[in-house]
């Protein structure tokens, strides 16, 4: 059962990556000048005729577009993402330097959002019509209407400019001697901006699905029979978390989009900031690489969410309904 299910998910992930790779390849095609030279960016002038010949062969540049795509895809899968136009270094290397920062920011924010929304959503959902219930419904709409980068600007003004207690930008690795504490100090603002603007809407979704679950027949039966409230609540949250996880999976792409902007604002040197920089400086190989990596990140994250769902929902495992 699990084999079949994972297989289906993998195929979906591959389709997504194919579309992303088309996008990326499309950039190479429309980039000005000879694609191969564009791909080798700033080093193009220094290439000898023999090297150009080699590149042309490797990327099948004298062949039809379809074959070029296959050749390019082959190189990409091997980890050869070309050379950055601006930095003159392999794109793969640059991305690998940046990747830990993005993963750190993403996992810290996602972790806090999940914990926070589980707590808020459960408290509000289990007490229908309480202040918590109505309060969360309103506040979540309000917080999700705040543009994250604007909140970031306000944060910078308050905490960096006025109070001077937090660094306004960077990810702490410039001097390289700050260690963990420095890293955390840099992380606080970008992470809290993402958390504040997202936790409410996730909590609200959970709250709604808990309220729906709370009206289920089995809950009535359990209450009538003096089952401990704690056991009832755990059961409800477990069931309500299945649509909640689905919702997380659905919103993860736009969450990645949001973190691109927040990374740029705080000059957090991750993949998102890199992508924007590549667009602004028209560094095509770098842009192609960042897009591919973002695609891979999204697909991996979704796969993890799927695995969690698989673990929680016995119906998926036992091949019941759905």
């Amino acid at each position: 059962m699990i084999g079949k299910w994972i297989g289906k998910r993998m195929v979906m992930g591959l389709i997504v990556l194919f579309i992303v790779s088309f996008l990326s390849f499309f950039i190479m095609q429309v980039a000005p000048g000879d694609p191969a030279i564009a791909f080798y960016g700033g080093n193009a002038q220094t290439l000898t005729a023999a090297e150009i010949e080699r590149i042309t062969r490797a990327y099948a540049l004298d062949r039809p577009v379809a074959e070029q795509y296959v050749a390019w895809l082959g190189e990409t899968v091997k980890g050869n993402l070309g050379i950055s136009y601006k930095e003159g270094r392999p794109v793969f290397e640059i991305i690998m330097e940046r990747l830990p920062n993005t993963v750190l920011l993403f996992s810290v924010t996602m972790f806090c959002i999940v914990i926070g929304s589980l707590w808020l959503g459960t408290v509000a959902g289990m007490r229908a019509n309480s202040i918590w219930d109505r309060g969360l419904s309103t506040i979540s709409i309000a917080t999700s209407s705040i543009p994250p980068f604007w909140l970031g600007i306000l944060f910078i003004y308050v905490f960096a400019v006025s109070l001077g207690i937090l660094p306004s930008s960077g990810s702490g690795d410039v001097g390289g001697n700050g260690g963990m504490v420095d890293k955390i100090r840099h992380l606080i603002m970008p992470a809290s901006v993402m958390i504040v603007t997202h936790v409410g809407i996730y909590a609200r979704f959970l709250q709604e699905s808990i309220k729906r679950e709370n009206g289920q027949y089995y809950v009535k039966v359990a209450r009538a029979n003096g089952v401990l409230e704690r056991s009832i609540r755990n059961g409800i949250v477990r069931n309500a978390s299945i649509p909640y996880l689905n919702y997380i999976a659905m919103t993860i792409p736009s969450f990645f989009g949001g973190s691109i902007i927040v990374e740029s604002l705080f000059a957090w040197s991750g993949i998102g900031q890199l992508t924007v920089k590549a667009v602004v400086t028209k560094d095509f190989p770098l842009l192609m690489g960042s897009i591919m990596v973002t695609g891979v990140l999204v697909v991996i994250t979704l796969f993890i969410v799927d695995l969690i769902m698989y673990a929680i929902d016995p119906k998926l495992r036992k091949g019941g309904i759905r």
Partner: protein
Amino acid sequence: MKLRKALLFWYSLLGLIVLLTVFSTILAPYSPNDMNMDEIYSAPSSDHWLGTDHLGRDVFSRLLEGGKVTLVVASGSVILSLFIGVVYGGISGYFGGVIDTVMMRLLEALITIPALIIILVFQVIIQGGMWSMALLIGLTGWLVTARIVRSEFIRLKEEEFVKMANMLGTPVWNILWSHLLRNSIPAIFVVTLFNFAAAIFMEVSLSFLGIGIPPAIPSWGNMLYYAQNDILIGAWWIGLFPGIMIFLTILAINFIGEAWKNPERRRVND
């Protein structure tokens, strides 16, 4: 009763914002692009209600003009995404079967790719003005609409009156138009409202990154782009007010959308 009042408030707020921006040319005390190098970074005062920016331009005037640009771009893109979404979702929902499966798989894959990434890619190539921005946001914003239209069509197709119409030999276009589409309007309206909020978000985000609307045209996002640096020297007014406008606009749309969503949900369950 209380809810109605609140809703009325959000309608009025949204209406007010739209009116302010529509009549920006009349209402603005200065021309939005008038530079005054003697008055750069002046804080809010009776001359400049909301202060001036790094080129001495009046923030209030730019706020009104910028709102117009932002709202026009958002509206244009929403109309486009509505059209694509209805056509795509309609075809998928009406025909069903293999067509539906293939179209929905493709849609699921597309939904997985952050829209911002797609727009970035095209923006680096086109680098156009307002309208190309609207085009790009519209081209990436139709996915949810398509999904809703599809599920509405599938639901309605099974309804008695549609089956009747089919049996009576009503022409296909008539069924599509007067039965399926007309009855999907409430759901489409709600998703379009939320789409509108998302489009505003997208425009301001891109312009904020400096890769959206060209810097020469004021928009709420562009104003925030400069605010990033201005805030560091303490000029808080440049960033504060456009943000408040964006926040209030999206807030109003979201509350209106929620209010429309709920009776809709009840109706479907009945």
